[in-house]
């Protein structure tokens, strides 16, 4: 028995030495919590970011932990208790200001000069991540809203991609007559999908200049341009442009309907590019994408700017240099090319110059769209998505409030009045995110 114990103990000691040895040889650990990603996507992150970063930086050991869709709640609780990862992945610019105010984030200004981020990253995004004059966050990916359409279906019916609001309405009416759903859409899996349409009309009908003034508090949300925008959106709903199953479909099901020709167009975000190869080729159809048409007097198409998540470094991080180096690696041209080739729509980091980036994802349309968006942002000709620029309670009300307008439970005036009141309250509380000057 004693001999057995000795042998078992020796083997255990050997095994633990074998395990601890390489761990000690590895660099200083950098922790990064990420949202949900399927096994394939986790593979892209591993081979596109984690492994090449660790190979290029033997002093560091970047690790990733997939925390699921409730990441932002877990992150807030962890940071409150002084824990959490080195790389703080927030749910958007809205959360950056309160976190910075609470002293949970590290000012990144030293790294801006060390890594030359001012030259490599579009200046608008540097401005968006600032609080009290200091930089606290960089956006992981930026996106825009536009109009996807089934090109094959359009050719069959002799339709052309619309360029004005009048044209899109004529086209949608023609689709209704053919029993085709004009706007492939659904919010069953993600209720905030409602705000995609609100963002579209605020920018394309009320205009980005008016939205900018409202965000700065210079124009109330009850002003006439916004009334016109919401009235138009409501008229589209009442005419049935969004189809009979909006509250029952997920966005993926809606996208599939467009690919099969059951629906003609899909006003949505560039993140939907990741579904093109799954649904269009099997249906022998070709996808089209244009900026959403604008109303008369609005210089368009307007590309509303959206940022879904941001990167920061935790104030309590014991490896802030490593975390900043990892963020810098994600913002490299190499990572942009690799990640956008494998996983288009999700890793559109705001690099200023995409001319040298090699992206090969079989979606030249995606590359063109992102270049157009980068140019629009570079020229300060962009619009505003509600989830990026509105404070949290205003945005949350907007999501449910627009449903009340659609379903006849409130009027446009009542909706905008409550939106304005909630916004003013949050503006007074300092919750409106940084709005870069136009």
């Amino acid at each position, binding site marked *: 028995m004693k001999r057995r114990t000795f042998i078992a103990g020796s083997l255990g000691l050997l095994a633990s030495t074998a395990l601890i040895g390489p761990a000690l040889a590895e660099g200083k650990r950098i922790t990064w919590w990420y949202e949900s990603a399927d096994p394939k996507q986790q593979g892209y992150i591993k081979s596109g970011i984690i492994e090449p970063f660790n190979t290029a930086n033997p002093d560091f050991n970047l690790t990733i932990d997939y925390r699921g869709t409730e990441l932002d*709640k877990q992150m807030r609780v962890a940071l409150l208790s002084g824990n959490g990862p080195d790389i703080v992945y927030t749910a958007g610019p809205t959360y950056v200001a309160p*976190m910075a105010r609470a002293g949970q984030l590290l000012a990144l200004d030293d790294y801006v000069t060390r890594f030359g981020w001012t030259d490599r990253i579009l200046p608008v995004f540097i401005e968006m991540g600032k609080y009290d004059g200091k930089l606290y966050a960089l956006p992981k990916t930026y996106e825009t809203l536009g109009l996807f359409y089934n090109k094959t279906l359009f050719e069959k019916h002799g339709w052309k991609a619309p360029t004005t609001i009048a044209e899109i309405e004529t086209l949608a009416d023609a689709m209704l007559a053919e029993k085709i759903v004009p706007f492939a859409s659904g919010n*069953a899996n993600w209720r905030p999908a409602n705000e995609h349409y609100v963002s579209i009309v605020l920018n394309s009908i009320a205009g980005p200049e008016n939205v900018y003034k409202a965000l700065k508090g210079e124009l109330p949300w009850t002003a006439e341009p916004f009334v016109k925008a919401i009235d138009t959106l409501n008229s589209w709903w009442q005419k049935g442009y969004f189809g009979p*199953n909006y509250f029952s479909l997920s966005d993926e099901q809606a996208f599939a309907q467009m690919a099969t020709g059951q629906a003609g167009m899909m006003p949505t975000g560039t993140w939907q590019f990741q579904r093109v190869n799954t649904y269009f080729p099997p249906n022998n159809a070709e996808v089209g994408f244009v900026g959403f048409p604008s109303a008369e007097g609005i210089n368009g198409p307007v590309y509303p700017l959206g940022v879904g998540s941001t990167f920061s470094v935790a104030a309590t991080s014991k490896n802030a240099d490593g975390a900043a180096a990892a963020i810098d690696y994600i913002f490299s041209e190499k990572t942009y090319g690799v990640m956008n080739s494998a996983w288009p729509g999700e890793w559109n980091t705001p690099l200023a110059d995409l001319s040298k980036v090699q992206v090969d994802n079989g979606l030249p349309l995606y590359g063109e769209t992102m270049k157009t968006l980068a140019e629009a942002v570079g020229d300060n000709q962009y619009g505003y998505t509600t989830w990026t620029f509105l404070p949290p309670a205003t945005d*949350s009300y907007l999501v*449910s409030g627009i449903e*009340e307008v659609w379903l006849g439970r409130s009027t446009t005036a009542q909706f905008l009045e409550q939106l304005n009141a909630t916004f003013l309250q949050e503006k007074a509380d300092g*919750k409106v995110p940084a709005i870069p000057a136009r």
Partner: protein
Amino acid sequence: MYRLYLVPTLLINVVIIFIPAVLTIALAFFRWDGITTPVFIGLQNFQALWSDRVFWTALTNNLIWTGIFLTIPIFMGLLAATLLLIARRGSMFFQVIYFLPMIIATAILARVWQGMIYSPVSGVNGMLQRMGFPTIDPLSQPSTALLGIATVDLWHWWGFLCVIFFAALRQVPQEQIEFARLEGVSFWKILRYVLIPAIWPTITLMMIMTVIWSFLVFDFVYILTQGGPAFSSEVLSTLAYRSAFYDLAVGKAAAVAVVISLFGLVATAFYIRAQAKEFHQ
């Protein structure tokens, strides 16, 4: 010395229940975004709730929910349990079948109903629509959304009640039932005068627990509609969740939680009273 045995459970209760409860009550009097320092604002969160129409919609929905769950599943459970008592053959099989939904995770159940029953694309509903029946997805209409969710929870819940009632009914002395049968008493009269009075304490307990659970309902509502469309299926717990994690208004969420607890507290008082009465008997 024997009082020392209470220490472990007391400690767990203090750490897991008492301290968070006190903190939640205290937070209801603060404005807090969950990130920065809380600011004391007195009763402002409660005043804001009073004038918030969504709060009243949520409260009404909780009351409707309680009404539904105090009647339909209890009636169904009692009826099925009594039938199981009379027709003993196969009762184990039916108990297992009725109880099965209880052991499936609510998130999975909700997704199954959403995708395989209600969906107009992939569900039975869609199949019926394609066959020409004018069916709708109840989750998509403000007038039916809450009922649509309640149906899923009822399907999941009533079997549990049935098994509980059946277990209680089996404790009823067989002689009483046999005697009533020999006297030619009808099934309904046996139920009314023998069985229900015999298991009344169990029914009372389940009704009180139903009230408490009805004010805590969250999972099915959140997964199936997230309180929509247009707040039509909002309940107090989804309102609290949205306030805390989407609006970053943790103080307001705490105020909603206090209201939920008040209803639970009333039901608990009734429960303790009923228990005390039973104990004295």
